[in-house]
């Protein structure tokens, strides 16, 4: 039985201008959902749940939750938190795409804000890096008063909107994130993963727990969008005449193939991958992320 969450309509949420308020709403909503869950009465020490991953220590398995929900959850205690977390957010041009009323960038920004807020509530320390062709802005993880506000301010800063170079970004993150911690990559990952596989592996090899949150517009998944017209690539500017109706099937196949490639790269590098579409409720996305948090690194093949 899944945890109940009161989903918040992303469109309504993103209509709120204040980023901090959005974050609060999502996180508070998440907490209220958690408190309404059947899992009352957790220990004070108990900090959070994490979904079981093969290889985790079975001593922390919550057998009761398993019995109730038929799903494996590990109890994580306070002493296991206080993560150093760096959120690397894609602010390239492609993140400006939307098939609805708000672009991916706005969704990603809210997600990053929400994550920051949540993590800081957990007394984790959070840093923020924005990237397009490289890391363009970096706020080191700190635990000091007003840091959250600085994170929000950086998130609000307009981006230059350049093209994406994940390889370079990851290389920069290797240099920037010297201490081991959690690195959350928030991007659409619309590029050939083979190009940055090695850089990603380098990052994970440093001991970082890397999570990839892939932000996609539903139209990018299924091409249920547009009409026969000249389609312009937002980053390269290339234009070609596309009839989506005739292209859709092939696009899906290619998309799935790329996604498979992407997943393979993540898997082989030990990166947790989560796909979040912009029509998905943010609180649900956060909940899923939280559940996946603290999982052991995926076993290398």
């Amino acid at each position, binding site marked *: 039985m899944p945890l109940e969450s009161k989903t918040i309509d992303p469109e309504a949420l993103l209509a709120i201008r204040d980023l901090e308020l959005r974050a609060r709403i999502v996180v508070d909503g998440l907490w209220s959902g958690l408190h309404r869950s059947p899992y009352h009465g957790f220990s004070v020490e108990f900090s959070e749940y994490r979904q079981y991953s093969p290889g985790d220590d079975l001593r922390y398995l919550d057998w009761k939750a398993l019995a109730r929900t038929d799903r494996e959850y590990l109890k994580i205690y306070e002493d296991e938190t206080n993560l150093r977390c760096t959120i690397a957010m894609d602010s390239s041009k492609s993140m400006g795409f939307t098939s609805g009323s708000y672009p991916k960038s706005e969704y990603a920004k809210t997600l990053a804000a929400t994550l920051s807020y949540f993590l800081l509530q957990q007394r984790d320390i959070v840093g923020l890096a924005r990237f397009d062709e490289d890391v363009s802005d970096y706020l080191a993880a700190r635990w000091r008063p007003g840091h959250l506000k600085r994170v929000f301010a950086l998130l609000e800063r307009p981006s230059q909107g350049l093209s994406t170079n994940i390889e370079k970004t990851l290389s920069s993150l290797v240099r920037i994130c010297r201490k081991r911690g959690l690195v959350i990559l928030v991007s659409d990952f619309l590029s050939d993963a083979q190009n940055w596989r090695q850089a990603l592996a380098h990052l994970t090899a440093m001991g970082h727990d890397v999570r990839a949150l892939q932000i996609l517009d539903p139209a990018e998944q299924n091409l249920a969008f547009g009409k026969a017209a000249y389609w312009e690539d937002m980053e*390269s500017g290339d234009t070609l005449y596309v009839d989506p109706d005739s292209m859709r099937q092939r696009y899906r196949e290619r998309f799935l193939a790329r996604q498979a490639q992407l997943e393979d790269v993540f898997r082989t590098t030990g990166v947790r991958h989560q796909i979040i579409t912009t029509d998905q409720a943010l609180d649900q996305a956060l909940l899923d992320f939280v559940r996946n948090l603290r999982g052991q690194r995926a076993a290398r093949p």
Partner: protein
Amino acid sequence: MSFLAPLFLVGLALVAGPILFHLIRQSPKNRIVFSSTELLDASPPKQQTSRRIQNPWLLLIRCLIIGFLAFAFARPFIPDAADTLGNKEVRRDIVIAIDRSASMNRPGISEHLMEEARKILEKLSPSDQVSLFGFTDTISPIISPEQWTAMEADRRINFALERLESSTATALPGLLDEAISEAVSEIEALRERTSVSGFGEIYLLSDFAEGTRINGIESIDWPSSLRLNRVQLSPEQEGPNLSLRWVQWSESESLGSVANIALTSSGEPLRSVAEISIRSALDDSLLVSPSEHFVDGNTETIINIPVAQELRSQPLVFALSGDSYPFDNKLALAPDYIPQVSIGLISQSSLANESSAPYFISKAVQGFATPRTRIDSQTPLSGSHVAYVIDRPLATAEADSIKAEIESGKTAIVLAHGTGFSDTIRQLSGSDSWLAENRSSDTPLLIGEVDFSHTLFAPFASPRFSNFTSINTWQTPKLSAPGSAKVLARYDDQSPLLVEEKRGDGSLYIWSGSWAPPASQWVLSSKFIPFLHRFVLSASGGPPLPSNAALTSSEIERYQPMFPDQLIQTPGIYRFPRTENRWLAIHIDPLESKTNPISLDQWEQLGLPEFEESVAQAQLARIRSQSEQESARTIEERQHIWQWLLWAVLALLALESAVAMRSHQRKEAMPS
């Protein structure tokens, strides 16, 4: 439909603009941005078989806007079906001036006139405006433009010819400059009658004899688009014209009493023989047998014809023969009329008293040529006098008698040389405001102020004669006159010298002072006799009209009132009614006898505008074009089609905005 400014229709070409714009514009670009086209393939573009016009309704509206604007600027109008002004024939304003002076009485001229007039009338078109008049020294309308227009077109020529036939030549002189000036004015009047310009033509039908007055032609202001046509009329027979002009009576040692006559020949430079006889104007009896006289061509000769002295006092007719033109071959002559008047002189002094006013008065009137004046001091109150000179105070009965005479139209002058004249003056004037009183000083008075506009002093108006200041007067009472009296002269102390008061039909003059030399230098001055003569003339009705006059319109106007039972229209002798032995002789103006046509040199000197036919045609074409334009403009201004088109443009603009907005909204609402 026609257009006032068809050039603006070129603007219709601008309709191509919106058409091209709608064709080549690629509507809303059909461009979609996508995050990454890496996974996309180019699709073959959809077949566009032909360029399609986007938004055809919007295009139509825009084309209509441009089209309507072009039409509006071109000022369209719908010509009237019955638009007579639009017909291509140019209207002409025609004035035909016919010479009706005495020289036009020569044989054959009237026939020639009718022939030429017919030719002119037959060339007229129904749309022409025509005015026809005859001229001598005045203008006589024959057919007015209104009469011409009212007449049916096919009857106009005969109507005009009938009028011309009934309008014959006169014995009056001709003033060609007046006739041309009148014709020009008539043309301008004709043009003002219509709003469409016409071409003006003046036809002058005349013999253009050199005796006609032409010197005023130079100052005529010629309007544009006006042609002057001179139609020279000639008698059936060319030859010299002989005429007579009276000069004077004279005495010749050899011939005795002689009539001096000027014999003139004009025309051909040939010597002519004239036969002149003298007849009685009363019974046409031959008084002097015909005598022959020679005269060279184009010259004037004074001839002497013996005439018995006793014949001078009767009206005569000098008859001439020897030329082909008898219109001026008779010269009537009336003896000069000298009126005789008497002045009643009422005085205590006799005419023989050389130091009295009566003496000087009687001597002065003896020199009057006319009227012949007699002074009656014996029966001054007889009532047969034209004027009275009162040199002593009058008794009441005398004053009443004189007063009645004055009121019946007589004139009286009172020489008030004492205060005793006050009563007389009051009685004659009927006003008690008069007063004659003694002066406080014996200082001689000079004449200070004179009204030279009054008939008594008019002869002295010239600066040569206007000095009265050397005439001294003594012993003169000081007059006080009522306000109704008019002071004609004053002494240098501003007291009245001569006062006039109108009484009934006559006049009363009061002279302050005596005319006797001991009291005044007046009768001894050079002013006295002319003054007295003016007084007598004024009292007798002015100088008599001459007994001989040329037949002109102004003379007819002067003399006709004296002849209520006769019309003075032709040369001859007219007896004055109510006056015995007084005649009036009317003769043709001698200038009319100069029948040579005006020379080309003289015409050229007048500066008349000359028209080449090509110039006239060009003007006609211009007027035709102007006429069409004006006609079109009038119709267009009446129809105002351009205003409706502009309203339509405004409505279309509003519609275009609405349609464009709707189209834009529809595009934005299309699913992306």
